[in-house]
Every structure is written in C-alpha cells, then in structure tokens.
C-alpha cells in the first residue's frame, strides 16, 4: 500500500460532494463490459433471453453499475485507495436499443475517521430519479 496519491483529510467535511458523473449506458457499454469482465450472461445482451427470464428487457450488469460507481469515487480518491466497497443492487437498469440509460452518480463524504485516516464515501446512483444502488459505500485510505 502506498501513500503517495492519497487524498487529504484536511478541510474535508461530512456532506461534501467529492465527485459526480453522468454516464450514458448503451448496448455498446454492456458488450464492452461483458468482454472485459468475462460475464457473458445473455440477459445483458439478448432481448429474447432477458424477456424469458421475466425482465423488462436487456439490463445492465450490476457489477458494471458498481464499477462505474467505483470509478467516480476513484476520481477523487486516486487509484488503489479504495479499501472497501459495498453495495446492494436495488433496481435493474434496462438498456434500450437504440438509445441509452443515463445514470447519475454522486459521491458524498459520509463519515471521517481522523485516527484511522479514512473517509467513508456514500455513492448515490440514480436512473430517472430512482435509486439503482442501495447502501453503496466506499472506505478510502486518506493522508
């Protein structure tokens, strides 16, 4: 573990937004993630299979949403500094074809531990104003 790139705790306040991002998730995004992750479950690219599984259509990988959320936190935290990341997947993200599902991510300081030199970052991920992740939290090593 290194300390060279850690974000500082000084001046950081609970409630402060440290990063936010809007991501357009398209079928291209899903195919790219399937290839990169090795998760080839057809509900993430095949409409017929998705419908027969009782889904509203092709949906995004939960782990894609979590990965995108992590990248938003990393933008502030720096690479390699997220010690712990957890989430529940509360709502699927249907991805139209053509078109995009626009997901907004907001990373907010939830707690600061000056002794441990860590910050808990709470991540809100929303599609059309509805949460797609629940209790999404990252614990970040800080300087």
């Amino acid at each position, binding site marked *: *573990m*290194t*300390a*060279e*790139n850690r974000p500082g705790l000084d001046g950081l306040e609970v409630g402060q937004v440290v990063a936010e*991002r809007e*991501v357009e998730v398209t079928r291209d*995004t899903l195919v*790219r*993630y399937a*290839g*990169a*992750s*090795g*998760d080839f*479950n057809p509900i993430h690219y095949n409409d017929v299979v998705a419908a027969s*599984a009782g889904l509203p259509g092709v949906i995004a*990988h*939960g*782990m*894609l949403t*979590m*990965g*995108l959320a*992590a*990248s938003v*936190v*990393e*933008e502030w935290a*720096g*690479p*390699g500094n*997220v*010690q*712990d*990341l*957890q*989430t*529940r*997947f509360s709502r*699927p993200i249907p991805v139209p074809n053509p078109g995009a599902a626009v997901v907004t991510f907001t990373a907010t300081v939830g707690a600061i531990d000056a002794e441990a030199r860590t910050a808990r970052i709470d991540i809100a991920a929303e599609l059309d104003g509805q949460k797609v992740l629940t209790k999404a939290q*990252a614990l970040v090593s800080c300087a």
Partner: protein
Amino acid sequence: MNTEAVGRAYGPHEPYEVTRVKIREFADAVDARSFAHLSEEAARAEGYADVVAPTTFAVIIAQQAEFHVVVDPEVGVDFSRVVHADERFTHHRPIVAGDLISTTVHIDAIKQRAGISFVTTRTELADADGAPVSTVISTLAVREGDA
C-alpha cells in the same frame, strides 16, 4: 436449493495472471480514467510497482471462483433464475499487473424467504506468496422454480 451446502469450500484454483492489457480493458469498460490503469510510468509515480487495477477488477477473478459454486449440482443453483443481490470488496492491498492470484471460495450462507434463495459466497484472493489480497463477498438471489 440445498441449505446443507453452507460451509463448503472450493479451491484453491489455478492462479489468475493479472496483465496490463486486461487492466486497461477493464478500466476502459468501467470508465476509470486514471493513467495509473494504463501506464506503468504513471502507476510508478503514484507509488505502485506496476499498472494498478480499478477497485472492482477483482470481480473477474472472484466470478471465476464463484462459478464452481453455481455449477455444483449438490448446491442446486438454477443460473437462469439468478439475480445479483449484493457485492462487497475488501482490499488488503491493491492488485497490480504481474500478480498471480489464487482463489478459494466459501459458501457462507444460504437463506430462503418469499420463494427466493439467497446464496452468499466469500472468495479469498491470495498472491503467489499466499498473502491475502482481497476478500470478495457476493450474494446471488435465486428465484425458486414453480414446481
């Protein structure tokens, strides 16, 4: 599903070799923009031995291990009825290119409620020296059949 499968462990499995190319590809797929995912020089400048993996990269390795649970007929997961319920990564150190990572996956819990079985697995990732790298906890929700 067979609740008696709780406590089973699978592995260690053949090590996964972390490569720069895979880290770059994964970083691109999850919109991770740091140059430390792409360039060895940028990674070194941030204090890493080589290109560093994005936070959720470990899922590639963990899901390969979890597959051993999903396909075990004595556990009884119907993969066509699976939805991901939750996920957690605890990193004991960052993953970097060049790591050789072996996995052992444990079934920590199987709970049933309202016609849905929740299977919680814990995958322990260790490096070539046997030192812990990451712990990945994942819960799958499996809708039980109509029969």
